[in-house]
């Protein structure tokens, strides 16, 4: 579904991502792990188009994404969350989801005027469902900025889902969460797979990555140093040395 071919991104002399080959198949959950600064978030930014690759290609369903603007990639079904939460703080929880309804289905379903200038009645049900999913139904009229940290993370995921993604890039969704919240997040990710959403999960929290992914790729200094099933990665001596360190040994 998603394929990076020798994708590189250099910032001056820094090779943030260096000749990365990565494949994500339909309905797969692929983990992307690596120490801080190893190029995980840069990979997400390359796929969503925040900046172009210095070299190499990024294919989505066989289509080269070069030159496709960020908002169009969403139309193709690629959505993301941000490592540093980027909600629309002065919009309500409900409005955060409302403005994200930009999928081709949403565009096609209604006319221009009802879509842009119409009230909120027509989309209440759909957004209500997403709020249920994220456990935020009781907070729908709260400003996003006033939510607790964990709630903001959940809202980010819900906002990405409001765009009806086929490929969802989660950039450290469990950062700062406690064990219970991580457990809930795990449930949600598995539920998403049940709906046929393909997921690329960038994460530091090992219990989450090891628990939900089909396959894991490990980055270090922008290069892929290993790839395999969670069990294989845990046993890989190269990965242990580079990333998991002494504590995991």
């Amino acid at each position: 579904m998603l394929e990076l071919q020798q994708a590189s991104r250099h910032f001056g002399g820094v090779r943030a991502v260096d000749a990365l080959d990565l494949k994500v198949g339909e309905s797969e959950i692929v983990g992307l792990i690596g120490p801080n600064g190893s190029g995980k978030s840069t990979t997400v930014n390359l796929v969503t188009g925040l900046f172009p690759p210095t070299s190499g290609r990024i294919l989505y369903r066989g289509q080269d994404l070069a030159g496709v603007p960020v908002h169009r990639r969403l139309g193709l079904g690629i959505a993301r969350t941000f490592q540093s939460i980027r909600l629309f703080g002065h919009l309500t929880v409900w409005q955060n989801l409302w403005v994200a309804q930009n999928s081709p289905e949403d565009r096609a379903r209604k006319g221009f005027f009802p879509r842009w200038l119409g009230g909120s009645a027509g989309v209440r049900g759909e957004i209500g469902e997403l709020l249920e999913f994220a456990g935020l139904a009781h907070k729908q009229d709260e400003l996003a900025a006033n939510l607790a940290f964990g709630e903001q993370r959940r809202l980010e995921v819900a906002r990405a889902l409001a765009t009806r993604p086929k490929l969802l890039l989660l950039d450290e969704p469990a950062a700062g969460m406690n064990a219970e919240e991580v457990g809930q997040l795990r449930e949600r990710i598995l539920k998403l797979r049940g709906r046929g959403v393909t997921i690329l999960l960038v994460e530091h929290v090992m219990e989450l990555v090891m628990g939900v992914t089909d396959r894991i790729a490990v980055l270090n200094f922008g290069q892929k140093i290993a790839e395999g099933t969670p069990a294989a990665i845990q046993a890989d001596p190269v990965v242990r040395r580079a990333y998991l360190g002494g504590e995991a040994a």
Partner: protein
Amino acid sequence: MDFYYGMAQIVGVHTLLGLSAYIVLLTGQVSLAQAGFFAIGAYAAGMLTVLAGWHLVPALGVGGLAGAVTACAVGFPALRVKGLMLVIATLAFGEGVRIFFFNFDYQIARGDITIGPLGGEGFRQIRFFPENGWTTAEVMFFIWVFVIIVMLVLWWFDRSRYGAVLRAVGEDEVAAQSVGINLTAVKVSSMTIGGAIAGLGGGLYAHYTTHIEHSSFNVLVATFAIAYPIVGGLSNVLGTLLAVIFVQVFLVEGLRFLGDWRNLLFGALIVLAMNLRPHGLLDAQALARVRRLFGKDRGA
């Protein structure tokens, strides 16, 4: 009484000017081009009633349209840059428009006099209202009909998905495009709507003052346009109206008795107002209080 009607006319036109900047400001763009669109609307509408003999209403429509078309054309290149660069780019455009009208002669003979814009002399005798025998009160009501229509339309925008999208872009452009919002389309459309409102306001302005010239559209006017929504707050269109009343009625007229001290106090009071109410005169808390007052608190 005419003094108060005149005051209300000024407040009405400046409210339109402020609202034209309000909608652009919602997307986080600071535009100093609003005085330029205001000028284009003023000259276009004035020339249509004076030189072409049109009725005022269609002339105002063309004035608004001219403002919208220019804003759209300026928006595409200008909105590629952000922040201070956009301020400079729009400032340059506004000054360009002013210099254009400073050099713009288009006079035709009517009997033994000539009428029409005459460069630095300005455009005199825009006499649609006096020729048709409108009283000051009637002119005021006429202006306020447009002000109220524009305020209602913007109020509706604010409650629609379009309004939420404008604010989303204003808050975080990266997040907005990541959820599929086309930044260029959103920014240019808000600029175009702002241009239409400024053009309409300019047309009204030209007719109630009856005399316009390049200096009526200088940087100070552009600064006022952007200051109204900032001082008033962006939570709602009424903030802009409140700020216009604060500036034009209280600061400009109310403090006239202070003579030269007024100008000194003027700046100080704006700074004071911004310090006391950093989110504008009419911020979210003030709105909530007003809602409770009228028993319309919908609860959280």
